[in-house]
């Protein structure tokens, strides 16, 4: 791809092959900032590269910012949760805006971000920090007391999440004192939230000059298993309210550019509750799903929305019209083995034969015994579907949970 000499460089923080591929096929010059294990690969394939080990921010943070500034980099783009604060630190130097670091730190702490949202007048559920199991027990009891449950009634669950992990990692649903006992020490401190009955969904929003430029609603079929885009017409009905919520979020968090990925609940009375927000691409390959239905590369969109040299015309030309321009619906399903002992991968024939089935990225099992799932954990790979009907896709995704992919 010929690069546009009028623009500067963008730096991608963290190693993502899909992101690098998108950057290589886009008109912006770029550099990958990644740990030194990526060096050989980058050299071999002529990928512009700066080695950096992303540990906690330290007194060398200035060094990487300066290195990138000297190379002509205009902005740093975080690709993973762990590089969000680095992007904040680097961009506060590159863009001469010290508040960007503070903003990034908010995004990295689930508890802080909830308080900030609350301050901005955004509805959130009941939440508290937990430092040990006693805190969790107390919270579980108090929440259920509030719900006027009597002793012996089944508890409403609470959610338990690590402060600074992406997505479903370290996310547990707690119902009983046994569940509390099962939490390992190293997962503290963490955030606890009341459970909201309702429809969970996520939003991907690209922001440029403080305005939302593209807003996608990702609908979860069941949390941790499956998601599809764009959302079904039933959920898309809420688009005006959702957009309003996101605008509030953008204002509250003072976001001028870039990309946010918040999660919400909408309850049966149409009330929106804020869950959390991340300042990086979502897991679960929503970017790939978006490309399947809209045809634009979401990583390139990321570069556009971060780059301060992006013009209004470029933005206008790049993004399609939400929902209207989508070609059907694309969804993916995360596979967890259902059996305790597995020896081979076998995609169910009905799955493969369904006209919506597109592809999968499952690989043969490396171990025979399946670790018992405690938290939502990591799936073994995704299966992709695409088709014209949201309802069919939704039912299909839900149905996958009843099938064995590993035998």
């Amino acid at each position: 791809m010929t690069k546009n000499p009028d623009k500067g460089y963008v730096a991608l923080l963290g190693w993502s092959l899909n992101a690098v591929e998108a950057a290589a096929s886009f008109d912006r010059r770029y550099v990958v900032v990644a740990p030194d294990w990526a060096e050989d690969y980058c050299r071999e394939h002529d990928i512009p590269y700066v080695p950096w080990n992303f540990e906690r921010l330290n007194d060398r943070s200035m060094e990487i910012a300066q290195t990138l500034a000297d190379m002509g980099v205009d902005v740093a783009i975080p690709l993973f949760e762990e590089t969000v604060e680095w992007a904040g630190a680097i961009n506060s130097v590159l863009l001469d805006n010290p508040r960007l670091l503070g903003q990034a730190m908010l995004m990295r702490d689930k508890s802080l971000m909830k308080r900030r949202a609350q301050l901005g007048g955004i509805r959130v559920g009941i939440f508290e920090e937990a430092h040990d199991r006693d805190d969790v027990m107390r919270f579980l009891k108090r929440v259920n007391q509030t719900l006027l449950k009597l002793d012996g009634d089944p508890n409403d669950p609470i959610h338990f999440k690590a402060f600074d992990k992406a997505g479903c990692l370290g996310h547990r649903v707690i119902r009983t004192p046994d569940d509390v006992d099962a939490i390992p020490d190293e997962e503290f401190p963490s955030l606890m939230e009341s459970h909201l009955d309702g429809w969970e969904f996520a939003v991907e929003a690209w922001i440029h000059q403080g305005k939302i430029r593209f807003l996608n609603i990702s609908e979860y079929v069941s949390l941790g298993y499956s998601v599809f885009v764009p959302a079904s017409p039933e959920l898309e009905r809420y688009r005006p309210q959702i957009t309003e919520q996101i605008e509030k979020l953008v204002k509250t968090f003072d976001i001028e550019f870039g990309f946010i990925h918040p999660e919400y609940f909408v309850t049966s009375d149409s009330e929106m509750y804020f869950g959390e927000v991340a300042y990086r691409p979502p897991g679960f390959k929503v970017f790939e799903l978006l490309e399947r239905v809209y045809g634009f590369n979401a990583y390139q969109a990321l570069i556009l929305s971060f780059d301060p040299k992006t013009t209004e015309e470029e933005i206008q030309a790049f993004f399609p019209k939400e929902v209207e321009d989508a070609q059907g619906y694309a969804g993916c399903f995360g596979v967890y083995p259902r059996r305790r002992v597995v020896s081979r991968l076998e995609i169910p024939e009905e799955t493969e034969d369904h006209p919506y089935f597109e592809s999968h990225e499952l690989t043969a099992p490396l171990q025979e015994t399946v670790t018992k799932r405690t938290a939502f954990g990591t799936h073994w790979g995704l299966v992709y579907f695409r088709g014209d009907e949201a309802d069919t896709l939704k039912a299909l995704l839900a149905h996958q949970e009843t099938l064995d992919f590993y035998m």
Partner: protein
Amino acid sequence: MTDPDDVAVTQKLALRVERFDEALAAMARAPAFARPGKMPPLLDAARLVLQEESGCAAMASRAQAIEEAGVFAGSDWATPQILVPSLSRGALRSADAGLVVIESLSQLRLLAIAQSWFLHPLMSSEQAHHYLTQVLALNLELLFAAPGEAERAVQGRLARVPRNLFAYLAETIGYEHVIDQLIDEIWRVLKQRPIQVDSVKDMITQIAVCRARRDIHWGGAGQGADRLVSSLYGPTQATREDPGLEEYQRRLDRMDAPALQYEASGFARAMHDTGLVSPYHAVILRHLLGQGDHLLVECLGLSSTGRDCLLCYSDLVHALIESAVFPGTAQAVYGLALMLERGILYQPPIAPALWRQLGLSLCVSAAERLQHRTDTAITPEARLLEGVLCMMGLPLGIGQGNNPTCQSARALSMWAFNDPDYLLQMVAWAARDDEIVMHFEGQAISSRESAGGVATEMPVDLDPVSLLVVPHLDRIYAEMGRRCVGRDGDPHRWVNPEFHGWWSGRGFHINVDVATGLLHELEDFLRHFYAAYHPMYNGNQPLIHPQPAGIAVTDSAARFIGWHAITILRVSLDPSGMMRVYFYNPNNDSGQDWGDGLVVSTSGCGEQFGEASLPFEQFASRLYIFHYDLLEYGEPAQVSQEELDRVMGYVHRSWGRERLAAGGLQAEG
């Protein structure tokens, strides 16, 4: 009316093909570094297509796009000309879907090449056709037998992919055609009497296995298979039902002399008929060691020459049988028989050199290289001895395998043919000392001290002697080439005589200008070639020693493929009265179509086993280098302009059509 089920099936396939096309487009679009990531979804999409009945056709029609998107890049499949047909068996039966699919895509690509749907830069349509016939032969049961339980258990639905593939391949090429062509093919190869017959034996075994099954319907095909199968598994009365080696030994123990003689002559007939030796033949030959030499003569099928030779060197022959002839090294029998027939034992150094070979202890690396890959009962020593006997008996049966080492194979063949004790010396050096020293213009060149050869990898698909000696020769040959760097002209001028032997003429002609790659004084070159080699123009002098020569190999479309090393063996009239050049081609199969009407003959035109031949004019048109004796030689021949114009016409319509990059060593050979 269209059957709604058909419509559904067609729609399903269309959808899957569409998904595949998307994956292929994504692959083609991606920068090179990102392509590996696009492979798994692409292969999976291909698998879904190939699992459908008409899926193979869809994939074959996309062969070129698949190749150009880089699906085969960075793997062995990128160079189809080196693919080994026998490896396809394992690949297609793998539980790894990716492997099954990429192997299938590669086969479909070869089909596309064979059908000329796709002009491949590295492979001709004939090569592809030839390869596919072999693959089909090696996988006959996929074509004819119902899937077994094992297949289902390992592969599940994936098993449909190789099944559909073979049905489609055979359908496109033609079922009966496959079997009959395969049998013809085996006979054609066997008529050249190659030393390496492992793959031929594999194919015959496959045919035998399939013929033994009732669930396979052959139709009218496969009539010519009997002799092939029986020559390996039941050439005689007492082996007819393939009783097993131990049972056969028991039967031999109970036989009287006439019965033994009857068996012995049965084996000899089968062996001389096909060039293949049954493992039973090894059993009986060992059994006959104690029974008198006349039975050995019978069992080896010797003529009076061979018989005299055996009787003269009885102890040596006994010792050779004792040490070299086992069921796993049965081809040694044929090598021994033909060596005796050649009468070379009467050359003074040969018998003592063979005694040295019998007592030779192998160095560690030689023993490792000779260790049989699957059959550990065969000792490296026996294997080497088998190879030595075969090479001494069949000097024109040496093949280069899939290695760019035509020069070394040619040298081995020339020595076995013309200077056999020198060959035995080479073998002793390589096997015992792991070093060969040759001299180039007075300077010693050690194979141990020389850097890399023309081949970048150690060859594996060779006869035992080549396996051992070729790596040494290849390094020495390359080193000789390096010592010519900076000289004006083609290095073969100096390297060939020094490398092959004193009898290679020091006179040298080449018709390509090394600097520009353009044809150079073609007419003059041809007149000199006629004068040196054509009996009508050289005073009716038959060629005395085999001479190295270089040819420009072309494919069936007469496109230039590369420079290749051959040996001119003789020039004489064939049975129909046409003047032909008989030559040795180190390529494994000499019967090739070089395009523009040039089809190299290997039998039926007066060829001896292993010889290839072309009419003189046609041969001259592919020649680019030849050697001659400077002292014997006279004026350029007064060949008629008409005849020369015909030869030059062949040149200009084929490899001479475009500028050529000449020079360099004949590495492509």
